[in-house]
């Protein structure tokens, strides 16, 4: 056993099992409301502003937000934290799209419906490939982060911890569908926000900002530069990555269809408002490492390491370690459950109807839905087991999702387009972005992917465009 573990493994097991049992019980209880397929996949399309805003915010707060924001602060200073915060702009933009989405697809269920309607089978296939690569790598990276977290904080072996976290999320999503996801997301979002506030104020109390500033000026003055080229590129890269992710992924489209029509825009705007300060509040604690004399051994554990030291200094001991574990567990669970549900919806609705030509019978929704969630969970578990660096695939997918930004905007707001040129832009934008990822750096990949795709989309608007098909063509 390593002495640096902040809590005993028995405490870690106890906390995750207790919270897990609560989520499963609540999921099962709320799941009883799902008496139809629409209830199971979209919570009856009647979700209000509070639950809608909270679930959108909680889904976007992942372990990447709480774990990587401190790393960004450590590497890029203030600009690094602000760069991360720009990911919330995708939610603000999507809020503006909401009225048009509900007008275009009043009975829509998945993002696949939109791509099939606007770009046909070829566009839908391209979308499915990109979104499945992205969603699965996001899901697997969350499971891996969960296993790593339990190992680092509680000494629970990686494979056991990863399996435990994934099993809990699969179980409650499987029992309760979207009702379970949205209900638990609300509680998880309260825990995340409260945890960030408590830890943030404790850090502020122990390290006066003037002292932190003086320490940075002496040891890492570059972090305080107004113009830091790599950090400024990271701002735009993150902004576009966020746009691409939010605009295309079914996690957001399923919420767009689940919230009540009259509160849709406000729910996304509220989520953006709630999310914006989170990377700054969670990230700045990294700046306290130097003044507190904390030696960061593993850069990726900067946040938990500093937080554990600060909570320990405050005399919170085991309680502090437990608080960090619970906050990070909630930030992972709120994303894993949403991804499980949204990816399963894509497979259950889109794949079965458009590829297998065998749509799910309405009376079998629960059996099929549970089966697909179990399948997606199983694939995730298998991919997470070898502990491959899947997170790199997630970062690599930045240009892929970036190249979908303009086609989504075009599909929503333009009257006509040259589909072939627009789709070629997605393919070439993805390839150019991947090329720049390896030859220049991660901080330009999404920029290049988006830029190339934008050029093609704008060209597609003026060179031999044809009208989009009528709404009734959404039949599979």
């Amino acid at each position, binding site marked *: 056993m390593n002495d640096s573990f902040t809590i005993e493994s028995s405490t870690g097991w106890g906390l995750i099992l207790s919270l897990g049992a609560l989520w499963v019980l609540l999921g099962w209880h709320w799941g009883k*409301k799902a008496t139809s397929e629409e209830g199971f996949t979209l*919570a*009856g399309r*009647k*979700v*209000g*502003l*509070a*639950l809608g*805003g*909270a679930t959108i915010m909680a889904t976007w707060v992942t372990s990447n937000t709480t774990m990587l924001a401190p790393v960004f602060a450590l590497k890029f*200073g*203030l600009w690094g*934290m*602000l760069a991360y915060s720009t990911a919330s702009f995708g939610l603000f933009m999507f809020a503006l799209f909401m009225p048009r989405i509900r007008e275009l697809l009043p009975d829509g269920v998945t993002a696949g419906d939109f791509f099939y309607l606007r770009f046909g089978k070829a566009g839908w296939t391209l979308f499915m490939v990109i979104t499945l690569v992205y969603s699965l790598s996001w899901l697997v990276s969350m499971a891996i982060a969960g296993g790593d977290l339990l190992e680092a904080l509680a000494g629970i072996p990686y494979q056991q911890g990863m399996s435990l976290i994934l099993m809990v999320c699969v179980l409650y999503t499987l029992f309760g569908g979207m*009702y379970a996801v*949205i209900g638990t997301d*609300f509680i998880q*979002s*309260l825990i995340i*926000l*409260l945890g*960030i*506030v408590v830890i*943030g*104020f404790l850090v*502020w109390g122990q390290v006066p*900002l*003037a002292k*932190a*500033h*003086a320490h940075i*000026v002496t040891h890492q*003055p570059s972090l*305080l*530069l*107004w113009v830091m080229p790599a950090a400024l590129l990271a701002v735009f890269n993150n902004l576009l990555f966020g746009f691409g992710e939010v605009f295309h992924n079914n996690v957001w489209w399923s919420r767009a269809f689940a919230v*009540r029509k009259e509160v849709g825009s406000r729910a996304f705007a*509220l989520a953006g*408002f*709630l999310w*914006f*300060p*989170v990377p*700054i*509040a969670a990230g*700045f604690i990294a700046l306290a490492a130097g003044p507190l004399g904390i030696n960061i051994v593993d850069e990726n554990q900067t946040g938990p390491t500093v937080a554990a030291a600060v909570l320990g200094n405050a005399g919170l001991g085991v309680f502090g370690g437990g608080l960090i574990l619970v906050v990070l567990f909630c930030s992972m669970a709120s994303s894993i459950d949403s991804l499980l549900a949204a990816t399963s919806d894509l497979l259950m609705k889109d794949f079965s109807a458009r590829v297998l030509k065998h749509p799910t019978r309405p009376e079998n929704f629960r059996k099929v839905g549970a089966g697909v969630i179990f399948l997606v969970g199983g694939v995730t578990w298998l991919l997470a087991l070898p502990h491959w660096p899947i997170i790199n695939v997630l970062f690599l997918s930045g240009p892929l999702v970036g190249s979908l930004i303009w086609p989504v905007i075009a599909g929503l707001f333009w009257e006509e387009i040259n589909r072939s040129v627009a789709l070629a832009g997605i393919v070439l934008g993805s390839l150019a972005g991947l090329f720049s990822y390896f030859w220049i750096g991660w901080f330009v990949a999404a920029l290049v992917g988006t830029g190339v795709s934008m050029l093609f989309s704008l060209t597609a608007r003026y060179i031999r465009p044809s009208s989009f098909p009528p709404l009734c063509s959404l039949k599979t």
Partner: protein
Amino acid sequence: MISASTLGLVIVGSLFWVLAGLSILVFLFIRERRKKKLW
């Protein structure tokens, strides 16, 4: 170079912003629960 006051303003502002968001969420929850419009 970014001054101590600017750094402080952004960081402390973000903490209070999170706190405000939390309060808004709880307020909305209570209001919608009373109106039976949670979901």
